[in-house]
């Protein structure tokens, strides 16, 4: 009897000791920030393009001023002809299984991502080659000014040639050299990750992170019940902060605007089967009138509760956007004159008609997104006095893709740290490429400016071309030109964070309310004693 009793006592004493050591630091952080990727955590298919790849590390990282900083690569250079990148890798990087990360893995990642055709744009890459264990060379077909962005966003995966290497299952079982490794992913519910013991950087403050994938309502309820440490909240619901939490605002280049289908409906269908075109929005006068009629300041006030600022383009405030692109104040009189001149006559029913065609179209938004719903409903109300009826319609994303994407005006959101997004949104080559340029916008002059920007000698020269694509004095995708979008607002991302959680100095987030806040995860600290 004596021996078992002693071992029980010893066990109790040990568990008490463990409990005491646990009490000294918070080991687990619960995050409800959304952003669950449909295709899994596979960088080759797009994981990490918006925000932080978490499991993988990138060759370079982006500083707060958006300039490249060393990450996996300690040195990098571009040849005179701007066709060859040479990068030297750090020698202490290891994957979460302990195997060293070498130039072979980097070369494999870039070559495979170019073939995979995911969200990473590697169309300019000819091939990547490992020179030695720590040196890799990337050969381009043509000079591409935005190629360096891929060095900052593409997470490095282990080569398929080695043990635990890349396979089709990688998205569900990611292995990388980032600060955390995946423990369990219950799709649609939660993701549990733990520290990668082989991470080359500073040890993260939290041993385990639990990401809860809940809807807006459930997230808010969990925040009020004290079940999460940080939660993303829509601006409209950000007024009432739970007692144990504080409001954290992250600036962003995340915007919302109305994409217009640019082609008339002539019976064509996209590869997905979705019909293309809309006779009403294909008319320039309608698009110009809507851009003049919406009161962006009121939208910020009503739909964002003040957490944002008016938007006039896809990249307001960034170097590749034209600062002169703006509307001083809504002008319904001028908008009405434009419509009258274009033959849109106001009838007794309060609606405008042109050749029997009513100025009526659907404004579709994802039904689960409160912010977009509010923006759609309020902007529809703002253009109603003009005699234009935008019908706000909430649908599921898959239904939007199947049915609405190319024939309805869509309340979209974009915003990137790279001008590559401008190329995707407005180049005719990307017409019908997923959500990018889903309105089938095509203007040869704009295409020429965008191509010239990609082939430019310097960032400064490229920025001039990017801006010219917006408005070059005669045409452009922007407000003064084709008015292909009605950009409405730039968001501030609002989070409720536990008062004990110090999230450090947050950067500027791209599109995607959620993952981008984890970009400086290594700086996060728990300031209270548990």
């Amino acid at each position: 009897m004596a021996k078992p009793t002693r071992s029980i006592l010893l066990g109790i004493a040990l568990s008490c000791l463990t409990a005491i050591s646990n009490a000294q630091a918070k080991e687990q952080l619960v995050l409800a920030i959304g952003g669950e990727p449909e295709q899994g955590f596979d960088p080759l298919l797009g994981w990490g393009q918006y925000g932080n790849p978490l499991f993988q590390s990138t060759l370079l990282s982006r500083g707060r001023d958006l300039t490249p900083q060393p990450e996996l690569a300690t040195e990098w250079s571009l040849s005179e002809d701007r066709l060859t990148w040479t990068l030297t890798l750090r020698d202490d990087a290891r994957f979460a299984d302990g195997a060293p990360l070498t130039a072979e893995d980097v070369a494999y990642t870039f070559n495979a991502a170019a073939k995979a055709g995911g969200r990473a744009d590697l169309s300019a890459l000819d091939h990547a080659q490992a020179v030695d264990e720590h040196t890799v060379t990337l050969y381009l077909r043509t000079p591409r000014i935005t190629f360096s962005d891929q060095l900052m966003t593409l997470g490095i995966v282990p080569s398929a040639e080695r043990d635990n290497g890349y396979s089709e299952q990688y998205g569900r079982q990611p292995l990388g050299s980032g600060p955390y490794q995946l423990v369990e992913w219950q799709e649609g519910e939660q993701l549990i990750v733990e520290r990668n013991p082989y991470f080359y950087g500073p040890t993260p403050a939290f041993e385990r992170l639990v990401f809860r994938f809940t809807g807006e309502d459930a997230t808010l309820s969990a925040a009020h019940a004290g079940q999460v440490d940080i939660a993303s909240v829509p601006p409209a619901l950000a007024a009432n902060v739970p007692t144990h939490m504080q409001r954290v605002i992250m600036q962003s280049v995340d915007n919302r605007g109305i994409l217009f289908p640019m082609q008339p409906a002539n019976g064509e269908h996209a590869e997905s089967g979705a019909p293309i075109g809309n006779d009403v929005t294909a008319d320039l006068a309608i698009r110009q009138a809507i851009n003049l009629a919406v009161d962006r300041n009121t939208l910020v006030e009503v739909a964002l509760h003040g957490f944002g600022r008016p938007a006039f383009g896809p990249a307001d405030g960034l170097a590749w956007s034209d600062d002169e692109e703006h509307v001083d104040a809504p002008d319904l009189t001028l908008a009405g004159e434009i419509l009258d001149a274009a033959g849109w006559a106001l009838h007794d029913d309060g609606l405008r008609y042109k050749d029997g065609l009513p100025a009526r179209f659907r404004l579709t938004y994802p039904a689960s997104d409160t912010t977009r719903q509010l923006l759609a409903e309020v902007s529809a109300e703002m253009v109603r006095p003009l005699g234009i009826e935008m019908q706000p319609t909430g649908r599921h994303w898959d239904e939007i893709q199947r049915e609405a994407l190319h024939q309805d005006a869509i309340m979209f959101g974009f915003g990137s740290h790279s001008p590559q997004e401008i190329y995707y949104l407005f180049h005719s080559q990307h017409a019908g490429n997923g959500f990018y340029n889903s309105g089938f916008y095509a203007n040869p002059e704009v295409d020429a400016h965008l191509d010239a920007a990609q082939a430019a000698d310097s960032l400064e020269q490229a920025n001039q071309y990017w801006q010219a694509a917006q408005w070059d004095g005669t045409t452009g995708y922007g407000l003064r030109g084709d008015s292909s979008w009605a950009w409405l607002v730039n968001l501030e991302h609002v989070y409720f964070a536990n008062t004990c959680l110090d999230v450090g100095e947050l950067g500027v987030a791209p599109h995607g309310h959620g993952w981008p806040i984890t970009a400086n995860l290594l700086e996060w600290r728990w300031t209270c004693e548990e």
Partner: protein
Amino acid sequence: MRLVLTSQSDQPRLRAAFSLGITTLLVMGLVASQWLLGDSAQQMQFDARLAPPSIDHWLGTDALGRELWARTLAGLALSFWVGCLAALLSTLIALSLAALATLSARLDALVSLLIDTLLSVPHLILLMLIAFALGGGTQAVIIAVAVTHWPSLARVLRAELLHLRQAPYVRISRALGKTRWFVLHDHLLPHLLPHCLVGALLLFPHAILHEAALTFLGFGLSPSQPAIGVLLADAMRYLNSGYWWLGVFPGLGLLLMVLSFERLSSHLRRAL
């Protein structure tokens, strides 16, 4: 006291007529309000957002300054039409299948199997699946509610038909060489009409509640339509912030409508 109770229970027809009068008044008021109000349920007042109930705003306003009384009325009217169409379609399906079951023993077995299968699946799950597969929207909700609510009524109608088929006048009619169609059309269906009427009325509150539930869960009508389910889902978001009127009034409206139809159908059942 006892006398009063007895006299009330002895007058089911009077009570049914009273219920019918009240419900008709409610429905007429609802329909007239939609005709008179136009699109006031959608009109926004940005300077009166989330205003509590007052003389200026009878039932308060929502996050975009829209009057809640106008939205509740619009929501109830929408629910009424959806409920009407769904209950009507559902009754038609039930009647057709019950009639089909009388034609042969094999068809009867098939219809019974279909009824039992559908009754064994929880309503709401089936509703969500159908509404989601049809892509949401008013049409999808009507179809989903219609194709899930007929089995109970079909079972009642089938049993009634089987019973009627053995009635002497039906047997005589068939012995005289009348066709099955003649028997069904001229002898059986007229007897079933009261059952159909009560059945449809009993289905109606169910249909409305399920429409609201579907929409509340995000599988039904678009969040931009002023449906009761949408108003309640909106209210849920703001509940933590203390805006109680957003949920209370649409909820009460729905309760009132469902109760009035439920009372009417139960009184009619007793009266008929």
